[in-house]
């Protein structure tokens, strides 16, 4: 189906997985191409349930949520022309994304049965450059090469602007601004303040939250971890708050091995930065892992052992569709209390 002046293509993007990282890029890219971008609503327990029903039980929870979002998109906008499912193979030579991202379009296409066609943006720098992948994408929509290269550069510029904004502002709110649909407005929940008013703000704790962007900023599945930590008088730092220059160096385990997962690379670099330069700026580390996440199961071990050596408090929270709210609160509450006792004693 080609784009014409009369007919604006309606393309749906599921709000899950790498939407939390590359969402601004995709929306800018598609809007430059004059597409009508529809984004599925924030994750709810209904979406999680719908996803777990159809997905294979051994898949990790973010993928299950992705399935739920695709189903949600199809039911909310039945007249969609395409569903946009990107395939991230590698955006850096010598590195890969998790195998589940490599066949995400096929997993959705053959795992769920629906008629709406899938449009795929394949990013694989091992095979062809980023501009070439944009041109390949344009062939499906009927755009020429120049427009696609322009679109790519425009989207890249917007993405960088977004990252600069996110460096200072609230990441979750900025992401929500991408979706103009009034139905999807998130209501701000008032969280219970755990600290008594008399001593509020006096005993601050600095906490680094590690993890994939789709775990850290997905407020449904992590039960609004960042908000809750802030309600417990914590300064929260995430990977996105680190200066960009930190990510330029290559990470080595030792001379024989190198690490080959893209997002794990960022996690390891952040962990190393706080072990080395920013050692005194944090008091504790929380690592968010989704159950059955392959790369994280190994990376978590390295981070844990590193933190143990430097005596920085460390907590890993494993997320799955059954994890209850109170269990999580108890754990982070006792964790912050423990750090506070250690710091202010």
């Amino acid at each position, binding site marked *: 189906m080609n784009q014409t002046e009369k007919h604006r293509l309606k393309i749906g993007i599921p709000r899950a997985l790498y939407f939390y990282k590359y969402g601004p890029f995709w929306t800018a890219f598609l809007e430059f191409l004059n597409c009508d971008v529809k984004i599925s609503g924030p994750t709810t327990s209904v979406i999680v349930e719908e996803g777990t029903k159809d*997905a*294979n039980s*051994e*898949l990790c929870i973010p993928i299950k949520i992705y399935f739920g979002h695709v189903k949600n998109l199809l039911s909310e906008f039945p007249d969609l022309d395409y569903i946009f499912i990107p395939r991230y*193979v590698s955006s850096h030579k*010598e*590195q*890969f*994304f*998790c*195998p*589940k991202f*490599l*066949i995400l379009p*096929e*997993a959705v296409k*053959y*795992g*769920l*049965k629906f008629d709406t066609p899938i449009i795929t943006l394949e990013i694989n720098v091992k095979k062809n450059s980023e501009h070439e992948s944009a041109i390949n994408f344009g062939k499906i929509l009927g755009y020429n090469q120049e427009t696609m290269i322009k679109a790519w550069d425009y989207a890249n510029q917007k993405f960088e602007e977004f990252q600069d904004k996110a460096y200072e502002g609230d990441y979750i709110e900025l992401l929500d601004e991408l979706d103009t649909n009034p139905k999807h407005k998130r209501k701000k929940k008032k969280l219970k303040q755990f600290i008594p008013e008399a001593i509020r703000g006096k005993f601050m704790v600095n906490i680094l939250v590690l993890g994939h962007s789709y775990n850290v900023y997905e407020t449904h599945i992590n039960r609004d971890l960042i908000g809750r930590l802030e309600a417990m008088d914590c300064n929260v730092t995430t990977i996105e708050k680190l200066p960009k220059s930190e990510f330029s160096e290559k990470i080595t*385990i*030792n001379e*024989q*091995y*190198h*690490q*080959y*997962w893209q997002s794990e690379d960022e996690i390891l670099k952040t962990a190393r930065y706080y072990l080395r330069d920013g050692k005194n700026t944090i008091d504790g580390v929380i690592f968010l892992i989704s*159950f*059955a*996440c*392959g*790369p994280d*199961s*190994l990376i*978590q*071990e*390295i981070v844990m*052992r590193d933190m143990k050596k430097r005596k920085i408090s460390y907590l890993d929270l*494993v997320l799955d569709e059954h994890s209850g709210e109170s269990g999580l609160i108890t754990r982070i509450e006792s964790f912050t209390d423990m750090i506070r006792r250690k710091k202010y004693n």
Partner: protein
Amino acid sequence: MVIRVSFPSMGWSKIAFKGLYRPIPGVEVVDPPVVTRDIVELGAKYSPEFVCLPFKVTLGEFINMIENYNCNVFIMSIDCGPCRLGFYAPIQERILKDLGYDVTIIPIQQDDLLDFQWLEPFYKITKVKGKLMRMVDIVKGIRFAFLKGSFIEDITRYEGIIRCREINKGDTTKTVEKLLKILDKEWDFQKLHQFHKVVKREFKKIPINRDIEPLRIMIAGENHIVLEPYINMDIVKKFGDEGIEVHQGNSLYGWVMHKLHVNFKRKTLERIAKPYIPMDIGGEAIWVIGHYIKCQKEGFDGFIHAYPFTCMPEVSARGIIEGQQPDPFYLPIQFYSFDEHTGYEGMRTRLEAFVDLMKLNRKNNPKFQDNYIEPPEIREIFDIPEKYEGINTFFTGIVEPFLNTLKILPKLKVNKRQHEK
């Protein structure tokens, strides 16, 4: 000083690995013990929580060998993604060092065997000097490994096909164990090149019933799980005892050949599976789907997919197969996901139910085509008489004496230098 070297066993594949490193001077290859429950538990105790099973098993083997076999140099394969296998070695080294063991893990890069990075361990494991002499030993080791690997593949292939036809129960198991024992101790190239005759001769002794048309299944999945009989509860034997002809999709020899880009069987499977999985995503996912579609076309009765719990590529493949059932994928399939808690009793119920299902499927499914052909291996073993093969004499007659002369050269050089001094 002799260095004691070992590696994870991965079922019978240890015979081939042993051949690879035995001829290197200054190296003593330690035979890795058979995997048992204690080893798996030991590995699971120190492993990360939800890492896949091969990691736990290999870690357990390492600890066991350090403590009981006085061996602390290990060879472990690494990869460059995207599956977890490539990252086993650094984490295992870290865990072992934190436990207080003095251990060296030598990685062997198996990403692409044509870039010859896998030759590096040969130079790392030994302290004996002399590069040219080593070259001869390396060639020798590679020949041992390839020959033994191909015979292991043959033996396991014949095993699955013959066990369902045997008249006296247990004959095949005895023959296979005997043959593998002989193969393990055979270090003579002349005899090794003729070993396929021994294999066929031994299998020919088993009395079989050639009139039956048994059910056919294919077992495929993650390499370590399918090849390690303790971990998969010896699934090949269990199905064979039920009277089912078992074909195996995995073998070490086939994997090495694939990594050398000459396994055309796997290339056709990749082409078949391309619409479902467009690229290699690690593990065996793409070939599992290829095998599945091929088996469905050939009129197999069932398919077994065995993989470790939470294996990323295999789980993705499973999702695709499950989503496409019953149309267009109608071949009955059973998934076995193994972890350290898997017991046989739970598996047996499922296995028996699957056998019944296949029998009913043969009768009732209108899509099932009954085009059973007797596998060519049966004819190979029982009908064709032994014949003299000329090509092997090329190796034993010409190549080997030539390599031996090469071995003398560096010694001559050394003598000359001493003379000059």
